[in-house]
């Protein structure tokens, strides 16, 4: 008996193992069904309304040459009115954190927690410090002795790819001569160069290696050195639309394997990228295919005759092998006629080895899911016509998604491009456009090759031959001003190379390095050094006597802290208790603490750079489809969703949200969001100007909240700031009116039958998505809150009692937006985009580019936006302004005169070399356009609150971007350690046994 049981167990495990290896059955699709997008993106300029050719006019939008680097005042910042420290006393800064770093090797770290050690124990060439007015930042030298010097002209030549006259491609950073590691080992330029060499060690595949070859600070040949000997895809065949970049068919060659080669490199495309058509877009032919561009004409079989006739369309399954059929019928007449796909076993074509669709229109099963465990669900979106060129391309992808182009596939890609231009195939396109038709695909084709193994000597970082304390950086792309200095606010991955080398090992045949995992495996070169580390328990850092900064006169009264002790305490209540008893000097307030401490004199609020939205994707057709399948909340009701596509309805949802109350209920730390961007977004990094303080940004808010006419002598508010401050976002009466307007329009459009209205058995059902794993109080409480608020808001309107809500299953923590994009859920809340605090221009892409938009149903390429620039009213699509122009691509904007669109145009971009005022005008206008859709309704601003201990005092009271409140450098102490111990031991200083931090 035991043997039999064991045998079964073994057999089960064996089968499981095979299944895991994919040997038993093919992988099931992991994604759910997706609906076809209703919009088709276009990065092409809007065409003129008539065929009369227009005249190009010019606007002076380019920033004038400034003649080089910004001049910086290098005088050290000295904060006024500070107490003087006792040089003999000890000042310990005690902290408790819910997680401690487990490793802080700067070449490999992945977790933000690692920065706890790096921030205190490492230094950088340059650093952010307060400006002279203490209300902003500036960048000052730290490990460097002066600002970087442009030495581009010294490196002109083919070796470095620098042409005569180039600027901003090579820099010299001169180090201080008194830099040392914690053990006194001097630090010179060679240490930085060697460190970068270790960072780029091809054997290591270090996580941070790409920091020196991707992004704006791109060191020459760093990527080649790192990837030497490996096969990879790099630049596009035609990277800049340059005429000399195209390789014409006469010059094409094919490898022995039959792969097309240009200039000796393999040519490949990816269906998920548009290449140079839109380098940052993560969509490509795939999206056009889903929009039906390449799937037509499909194979259609008609069965039966006359009225009985049914048409079956041939599709391929995801594996492109099994053929399936589904039926369709035409519904409606004339212009309203449309195909409706449905499943039916009746009248199926009798064809061998082919499967007939028997399930829902949006997905189907191979096999019966009720009886057969092996039934495979397949989404229609993944079922291209097996005969289509796209399907064949798709089947040729390698595991990384690249399609190496054979002669046959080249023709297919050419045809795809031709189809996008409205031609049947490439030959037809060539008749119209000449030979360009044959090579246009090269703009989206990658060049693949084996990276040449290069010597580190060819990498653009080296010791200045004339000065052992100077490092030369040679960059692939020009970089100047703030972004250059910002890129150099790092230590350039400095490690103690001797120690680093000694820690290289091998485990399971793989390179390992344990640098930065303990006190013994790490060397500090910053203001503090690691003196104690117990995993998941405690970190202690003490002053690093070897740090040059302590010898500087300006720091005589800075860096009071002699020791930093951080303990890991996972429960917030324990951290609070420690703080209240004086064991720690800072505590990050939690939502549940806010009732007690939100008004405390010791509470400091810090706004983050994220805005959280209620997101809606108003796709009328998708709503129609979803409402047909939806189960009513109230049995017997008919479900409707299409009213969500009405802007008035979405506006009403917005106005019925009392944001302050919403924040108090769900996220007491959060602030009220009034626009797409919050107050921490910097629009002018060079000067540290916050976007929301600019006139353009203020005007957007006032216009959106209809307060533009209420400011000034005739208005309610004296200043714009006062008006903005008054905005709550809450207007219940207005919301009710809008609900009624939306309802009336909706009824008038015939979206609900008179029969249903009369019976009253109908509901507008809103499926609210639940990002995360299902345990989030924020999303669970928020669902209840929104349901209650919105249901109350429709009281007294025709929608009263007809608004119902459902909460989706947990959508996961990463890719939850796709459920809104494909309208599986109707609303997401508490979602948005984070990061890019210094680049709101680039971040705007997230709101207007279909591949990022939460609401791709909003076709930004067909929504026109007029902007006043240079005395002209310019019209282009929101996509062109927000995605292309702001990212630096030149767009064609048509001129509007007296409200009439002309054929005259202006070629313009709003990239980094555009005048700041024009950039701001465009950014603000696009922000206004995004807000005006009411698809992304701003609700909360990301913020945090901290209780500051009585023992310490921040450098400044107001938070400054980049510098905070002065950090450890400017923090002072009200008590020495001894004094503090006495203070908290004295019961007179306590209330109920704890320090009195409550208001």
């Amino acid at each position, binding site marked *: 008996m035991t043997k039999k049981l*064991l045998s079964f*167990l*073994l057999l089960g*495990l064996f089968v*499981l*193992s*095979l*299944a*895991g*290896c*994919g*040997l038993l059955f093919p992988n099931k699709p*992991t994604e759910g069904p997706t609906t076809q997008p209703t919009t088709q993106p276009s990065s092409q300029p809007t065409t003129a309304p008539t065929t009369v050719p227009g005249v190009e006019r010019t606007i002076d939008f380019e920033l004038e040459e400034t003649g080089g680097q910004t001049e910086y005042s290098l005088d050290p910042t000295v904060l006024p009115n500070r107490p003087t420290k006792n040089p003999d006393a000890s000042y310990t800064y005690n902290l408790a954190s819910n997680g401690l770093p*487990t*490793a802080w*090797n700067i070449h*490999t*770290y*992945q977790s933000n927690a690692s920065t706890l050690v790096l921030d205190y124990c490492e230094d950088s060439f340059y650093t952010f410090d307060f400006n002279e007015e203490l209300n902003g930042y500036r960048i000052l030298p730290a490990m460097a002795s002066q600002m970087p010097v442009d030495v581009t002209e010294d490196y002109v030549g083919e070796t470095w790819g620098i042409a005569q006259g180039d600027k901003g491609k090579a820099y010299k950073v001169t180090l201080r001569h008194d830099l040392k590691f914690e053990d006194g080992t001097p630090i010179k330029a060679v240490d930085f160069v060697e460190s970068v060499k270790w960072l780029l060690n091809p054997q290591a*595949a*270090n*996580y941070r*290696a*790409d920091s020196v*070859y*991707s992004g704006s600070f791109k060191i020459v040949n760093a990527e080649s050195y790192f*990837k030497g000997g*490996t096969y*990879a895809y790099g630049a596009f065949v035609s990277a800049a639309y340059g005429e000399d970049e195209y390789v014409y068919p006469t010059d094409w060659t094919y490898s022995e394997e039959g792969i097309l080669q240009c200039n000796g490199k393999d040519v490949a495309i990816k269906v998920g990228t548009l290449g140079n058509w839109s380098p940052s877009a*993560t969509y490509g032919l795939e999206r056009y295919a889903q929009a039906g561009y390449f799937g037509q004409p499909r194979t259609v079989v008609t069965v039966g005759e006359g009225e009985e006739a049914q048409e079956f369309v041939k599709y391929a399954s995801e594996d492109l092998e099994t053929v399936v059929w589904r039926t369709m019928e035409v519904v409606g007449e004339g212009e309203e006629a449309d195909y409706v796909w449905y499943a039916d076993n009746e009248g199926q074509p009798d064809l061998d080895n082919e499967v007939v669709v028997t399930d829902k229109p949006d997905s189907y099963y191979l096999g019966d899911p009720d009886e057969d465990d092996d039934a495979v669900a397949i989404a229609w979106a993944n079922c291209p016509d097996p005969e289509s060129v796209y399907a064949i391309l798709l089947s040729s992808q390698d595991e*990384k998604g690249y399609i190496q182009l054979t002669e046959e596939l080249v023709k297919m890609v050419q045809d795809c491009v031709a189809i996008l231009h409205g031609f049947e195939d490439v030959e037809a396109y060539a008749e119209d456009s000449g030979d360009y038709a044959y090579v246009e695909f090269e703009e989206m084709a990658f060049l693949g090759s084996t990276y040449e193994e290069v010597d580190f000597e060819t990498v653009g970082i080296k010791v200045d031959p004339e000065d052992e304390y100077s490092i030369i950086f040679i960059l692939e792309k020009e970089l100047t001003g703030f972004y250059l200095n910002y890129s150099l606010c790092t230590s350039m991955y400095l490690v103690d190379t001797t120690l680093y080398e000694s820690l290289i090992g091998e*485990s*399971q*045949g*793989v*390179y*390992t*390095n*344990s*640098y*930065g*995992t303990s006190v013994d495996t790490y060397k500090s070169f910053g203001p503090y050094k690691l003196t*104690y580390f*117990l*995993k*998941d*328990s*405690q970190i202690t850092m003490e002053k690093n006597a070897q740090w040059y900064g302590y010898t500087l006169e300006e720091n005589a009264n800075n860096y009071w802290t002699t020791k930093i002790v951080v*303990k*890991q*305490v*996972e*429960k917030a209540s*324990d951290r609070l*208790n*420690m703080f209240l008893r004086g064991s720690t000097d800072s505590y990050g307030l939690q939502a549940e603490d806010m009732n007690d401490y939100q008004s405390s004199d010791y509470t400091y609020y810090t706004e983050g750079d994220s805005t959280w939205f209620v997101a809606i994707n108003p796709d009328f057709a998708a709503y129609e489809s979803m409402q047909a399948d939806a189960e009513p909340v109230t049995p017997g009701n008919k479900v409707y969703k299409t009213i969500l596509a009405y802007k008035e309805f979405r506006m009403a949802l917005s106005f019925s949200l009392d944001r302050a109350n919403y924040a108090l209920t769900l996220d007491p730390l959060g602030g009220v969001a009034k626009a797409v961007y919050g107050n921490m977004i910097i629009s002018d990094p060079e000067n540290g100007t916050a976007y929301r303080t600019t006139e353009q940004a203020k005007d957007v808010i006032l216009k959106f909240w209809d307060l533009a006419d209420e400011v000034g002598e005739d208005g309610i508010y004296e200043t714009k700031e006062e008006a903005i401050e008054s905005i709550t976002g809450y207007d219940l009466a207005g919301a009710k009116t809008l609900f009624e307007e939306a309802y009336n329009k909706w009824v008038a459009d015939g979206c609900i039958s008179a029969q249903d209205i009369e019976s009253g058995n109908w509901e507008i059902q809103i499926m609210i998505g639940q990002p995360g794993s299902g345990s989030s109080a924020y999303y669970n409480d928020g669902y209840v809150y929104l349901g209650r608020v919105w249901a109350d808001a429709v009281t007294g309107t025709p929608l009263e009692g007809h608004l119902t809500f459902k909460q989706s299953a947990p959508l996961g923590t*990463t890719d939850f937006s796709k459920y809104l994009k494909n309208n599986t859920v109707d609303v997401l809340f508490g979602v948005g985009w984070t990061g890019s605090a210094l680049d709101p221009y680039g971040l705007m892409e997230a709101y207007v580019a279909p591949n990022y938009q939460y609401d791709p149903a909003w076709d930004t390429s067909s929504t026109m936006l007029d902007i006043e620039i240079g005395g002209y009213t310019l019209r282009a699509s929101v996509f062109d302004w927000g995605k292309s122009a702001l990212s630096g691509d030149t767009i064609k904007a048509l001129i509007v005169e007296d409200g009439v669109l002309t054929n005259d145009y202006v070629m313009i971009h709003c990239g980094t070399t555009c005048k700041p005022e024009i950039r701001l005008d465009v950014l603000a206008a696009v922000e206004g356009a995004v807000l005006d859709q009411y698809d992304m309704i701003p609700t909360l601003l990301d913020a945090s609150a901290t209780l500051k201990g009585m023992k310490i005092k921040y450098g400044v009271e107001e938070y400054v971007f980049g510098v905070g409140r002065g950090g450890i450098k400017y923090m002072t102490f009200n008590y020495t350690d001894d004094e503090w111990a006495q203070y908290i031991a004295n019961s007179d200083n306590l209330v109920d046994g704890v320090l009195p931090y409550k208001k």
Partner: protein
Amino acid sequence: MYLLKYISKRLALMLVTFFIIVMGCFVLVKLLPNIPAEQFGKDMEVILARREKLGYNLPIIQQFWRFLKYAFQGDFGVSEQLYIGSEVWQIFVDKLPYTVAVNVYSIFLSIPLGLGLGIIAAIRKNKWQDHLISTGVMIFVSIPSFIYGFIVKYLLCYKLKWFEPLMDASQGPWSFRAFETMIPAILCLSFSSIAGFARYTRAELSEVLTSDYLLLARTKGLSRQQATIRHALRNSMVPIFPMILGEFISIMGGSLIIEQMFTIPGVGKLYINSVQATPPDYNFFMLDTVFYTFIGLFAGIIVDISYGIIDPRIRMGAR
């Protein structure tokens, strides 16, 4: 001879079971979806290159053999998620003493108290002492240890201020400072063990105290105390001792909640953290699997064999 054969058979079965569990866990954890390389916002090639080097692209069976090959050499790999760059075995060994310490103290407290209370309850069966102890036992057996955690921390640490609420591990797991600050955690872990030992001892001893041979012992002139200690207690220990042994071996399993509540840097959370990491920390997960599976299986064998050693009348494997 029988015992030797029995042990050999059990060991062989243990190895087969061990292999099956380890292989099953390996396959299952590898079947969990990995994060697509694109989602790191990094150069995808870097992520893919690392995965290639780690053998993630091999068929799972090949990866398993690769794991076995290195595991037999004592190389369980390096952490790729939780403690990047550190050898998982070293991390495990570093943290294990903290878990062992708190559990050893807990058992040393539980055994005398549990046995003592059980003996009192058995001797004073159906008296008020028995009722009091049995009621207490029922309560403490039923309540999970983390509930004691809240009560102990609030009452003894914050209200009465007898103990520090969090462990101070800075002087090592076996230091007095560690012991002193571990007391609340030790108490929490001990309550259910004490109750368990007491209940079991009471039941066994009660049965023995009413047996014929104990009556004989009394009739031949032994006092109640002599009969209880020399005969009853010793015989009742036959089933109790393996239970104590099992507790000792399982102490390395750790206590996830208690360790977290009292900030004990032990191994309790490693297992769950390794599988919750995205992507999972495969090497940690497999080391934990190997370790705990082995401990569990080995404990079973030791307990079984101990029956025969404690009571020579029990002959394992005899027909």
